[in-house]
C-alpha cells in the first residue's frame, strides 16, 4: 500500500507530468465470416482498449520509473474483458550495468513466424492469437555490459497464467480452457521462483544471443479428458510443468539479406526435444524508382516431436511479403501464409496499417484457415474462424 502511495505522490508531484503521459485508446471490431463451432459464440465482436503510460526520469537520466496499465472491454467475451499491469518498473543505469526491478516485458529472438527463444513473458492470448501480446512479468533483471557482450540475469518471482478466450469468445479450442482450475508441477505453484540467464553480443554483421531458462514453462499442457468447470461447462484444464530451456538466436545481416536462426532444446515433463526456426528476409529497396520497399520473408518451422508437438508448427513453411510505402503515413502491408508440409492446412494472414490523422492509426488484420481436417488436434477448433478486424487507435 505504501508503495502505491509513493507512486501516486511521485506522479502527482511531478511538475512535468503533462509531458510524461502518453498512450493510446483503440476501438476495434472483428467480423467472422462463419458461425462458430459452438452455439455460445458470435459473429461480430466490438471492443475498446486503453493503455496509458507514465514515465519519469531523474538523476540525469540514470534512474527512471515507468507505469503502463492496460485494460480492455470486449462486447461478448468475458475473458477478453481484462486488465493487466504491462509495466511497473524502476530502472537504474550504472556505468557498466543496469538494474531493473518491477513488472515488465523482455523480448528475445530474431524470427517473425514464431518466437521459440522468447520465454520470459506469458502470452496474453485473448489479445491476439499471434502470441505477440504479453502479460507483464514481475522480475529483477541485472545486466552486465562488457566488451565481449551483455550478460543478463533474471530472477522471476511470480508466475503469470496464460489468458484464454471465454466460452463466448472465438479463436478458442472446442472445449474451452478452464483457467479457474489450474495444475502446477511445482508445489510452490505461482510462487515458484524462475531464473534465466542470457548472453547477447554483436560482432560485425552477426547478432548472437544464448540463453537458459529454469522454471515453470509459459506454455501449458492440458488435461486430456474434459471436466466440468465452475459453471458446469465441459472444459480442459491447463497444466504448467517445470522446464529447462536452452536457446540460441542468430542473425547475420549481409547487405539486403537478414539470415535468421532460432534453436531451442527444452526438457519438460520427462521429455526432451528440439525445435527451430530458420530463414531469411530479403528486401528490394526503392522498387520501380519509387520510395516503396518489398521484403520477402521465408522461414522454416521445425519441432522434432513431429505430430506429438504441442504447437501446430512441426514441419511448416512460412512465406511473407511485406510492402512498406515509406510515405508520410507509414503505410505498410504484410501478407503471409504458414503451410504445413505434411497436410493441406494453411494459415493465411494480412496485416495492413496506415496513419489516417496526426494522432490516429488504422490497422486491418485478417486471418484465414484453410484445408484443416476436422480431426486435426490443434487446428480443427479454428476451422470456421476466418475473420477480419478493423482497429482505429488514437495516440496521445
Amino acid at each position, binding site marked *: 500500500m505504501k508503495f502505491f502511495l509513493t507512486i501516486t505522490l511521485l506522479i502527482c508531484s511531478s511538475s512535468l507530468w503533462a509531458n510524461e503521459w*502518453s498512450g493510446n485508446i483503440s476501438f476495434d471490431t472483428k467480423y467472422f465470416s462463419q458461425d462458430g463451432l459452438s452455439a455460445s459464440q458470435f459473429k461480430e465482436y466490438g471492443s475498446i482498449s486503453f493503455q496509458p503510460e507514465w514515465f519519469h526520469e531523474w538523476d540525469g537520466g540514470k534512474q527512471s520509473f515507468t507505469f503502463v496499465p492496460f485494460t480492455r472491454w470486449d462486447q461478448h467475451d468475458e475473458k477478453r474483458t481484462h486488465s493487466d499491469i504491462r509495466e511497473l518498473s524502476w530502472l537504474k543505469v550504472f556505468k*557498466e550495468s543496469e538494474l531493473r526491478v518491477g513488472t515488465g516485458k523482455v523480448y528475445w529472438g530474431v524470427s517473425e513466424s514464431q518466437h521459440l527463444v522468447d520465454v520470459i513473458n506469458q502470452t496474453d492470448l485473448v489479445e491476439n492469437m499471434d502470441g505477440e501480446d504479453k502479460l507483464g512479468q514481475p522480475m529483477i533483471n541485472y545486466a552486465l555490459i562488457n566488451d565481449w557482450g551483455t550478460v543478463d540475469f533474471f530472477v522471476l518471482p511470480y508466475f503469470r497464467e496464460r489468458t484464454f478466450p471465454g466460452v463466448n469468445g472465438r479463436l478458442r479450442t472446442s472445449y474451452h480452457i478452464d483457467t479457474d482450475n489450474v495444475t502446477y508441477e511445482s508445489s510452490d505453484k505461482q510462487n515458484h521462483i524462475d531464473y534465466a540467464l542470457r548472453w547477447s553480443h*554483436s560482432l560485425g554483421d552477426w547478432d548472437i544471443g544464448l540463453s537458459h531458462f529454469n522454471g515453470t514453462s509459459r506454455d501449458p499442457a492440458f488435461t486430456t479428458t474434459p471436466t466440468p468447470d465452475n459453471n458446469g461447462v465441459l472444459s480442459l484444464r491447463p497444466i504448467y510443468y517445470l522446464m529447462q530451456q536452452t536457446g540460441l538466436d542468430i542473425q547475420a545481416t549481409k547487405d*539486403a539479406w*537478414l539470415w535468421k536462426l532460432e534453436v531451442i532444446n527444452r526438457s519438460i515433463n520427462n521429455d526432451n526435444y528440439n525445435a527451430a526456426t530458420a530463414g531469411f528476409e530479403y*528486401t528490394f529497396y526503392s522498387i520501380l524508382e519509387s520510395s516503396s*520497399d518489398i521484403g520477402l520473408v521465408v522461414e522454416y518451422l521445425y519441432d522434432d516431436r513431429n505430430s506429438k508437438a504441442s504447437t501446430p508448427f512441426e514441419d511448416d513453411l512460412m512465406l511473407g511479403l511485406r510492402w512498406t510505402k515509406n510515405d508520410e503515413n507509414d503505410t505498410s502491408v504484410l501478407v503471409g501464409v504458414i503451410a504445413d508440409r505434411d497436410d493441406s492446412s494453411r494459415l493465411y494472414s494480412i496485416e495492413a496499417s496506415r496513419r489516417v490523422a496526426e494522432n490516429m492509426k488504422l490497422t486491418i488484420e485478417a486471418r484465414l484457415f484453410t484445408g484443416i481436417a476436422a480431426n486435426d488436434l490443434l487446428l480443427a477448433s479454428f476451422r470456421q474462424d476466418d475473420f477480419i478486424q478493423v482497429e482505429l487507435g488514437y495516440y496521445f
Partner: protein
Amino acid sequence: MKGIILLFSLIAFSSLAGAALAETAEEKGLAIAVEADKRDQGWTDQETTSKMILRNSQGAESTREIRGKALEVEGDGDKSLTIFDTPRDVKGTAFLSFTHTLKADEQWLYLPALKRVKRISSSNKSGPFMGSEFSFEDISSQEVAKYKYKFIKDDKINDREVFVIERIPQYKKSGYTKQIAWIDKEMYQPLKIEFYDRKKSLLKTLTQHDYKQYLNKYWRPGRLEMVNHQTSKSTTLLWKSYKFKNGFSSRDFDRNSLKRAR
C-alpha cells in the same frame, strides 16, 4: 581511413606548396573537403532536438519531432542514437547507427510496443528517412572518404563567398550519381547541395540556413530545406537546439541504451 587520407593530403599539400599552380581541380576539391572535415573535428559529442515538417505535392503538412545524440569516433564514422517523439503512434521508436566510411553501417531499430531490438539492413541508403525527402545517406555522418571531389568554380550565394565542388559518392548503394555543393568560404559548411539521381537528372536541392557558431568553433545550421523537384514534395528540418560536450561515451550508444531510449 580518414587519418590516412588527411595525412596523404597534407603530404600532397606540402609537395604542392612550391607548385601551387599545378593543383588540379580534383586536388582542390579534396583539399576543401579535408579542410571542412578538419574544422569540424573535436566536437566530441552533441545532443539535439529537431522537428521535421513534411509537405506533399498538395502542400498538406505532417510533422515529426526527433531527439538525437551523436558521438564523434576518430578515424571512422560517428555513432548516433535517434529517438522519435511524434507522430505519437511511433513515440519511443529509436534508431541506433554506427556509421563507417567505406564498409556497411551497423543499424538497429527499437520497437517499443514489442520491446524488440531489430538489427536492420543498412543497404537502404537511398530510402526516405521517416517518410521525408531526406534519405538515410543525407542524414548520416559526412566523411571525407565517402566521395571523390572536384572543384568547379568560385561563386557567391546571398553575398557570401563560396566554393562550388562536385562530389561523387564512393560508397555502395547510393541513390546519387553526383552532388554539387556550395561551400561557404568562411564557415566551410554547405549553403546548398544539389542531388542528381541515378539517371543523372536533378532530383533534390537542399539549402541550409541560419548558421550559428558553437564553442567558438563549430558551425551548425538552424534550418534545412529539402525540395524534391521530381515529386514537388518538400521537407523542412528545424534544429531547435544543439548541446555539445555532454560527456557521452560508447555506453550511451549500445543496444542497452537503445532499449531504454525515451
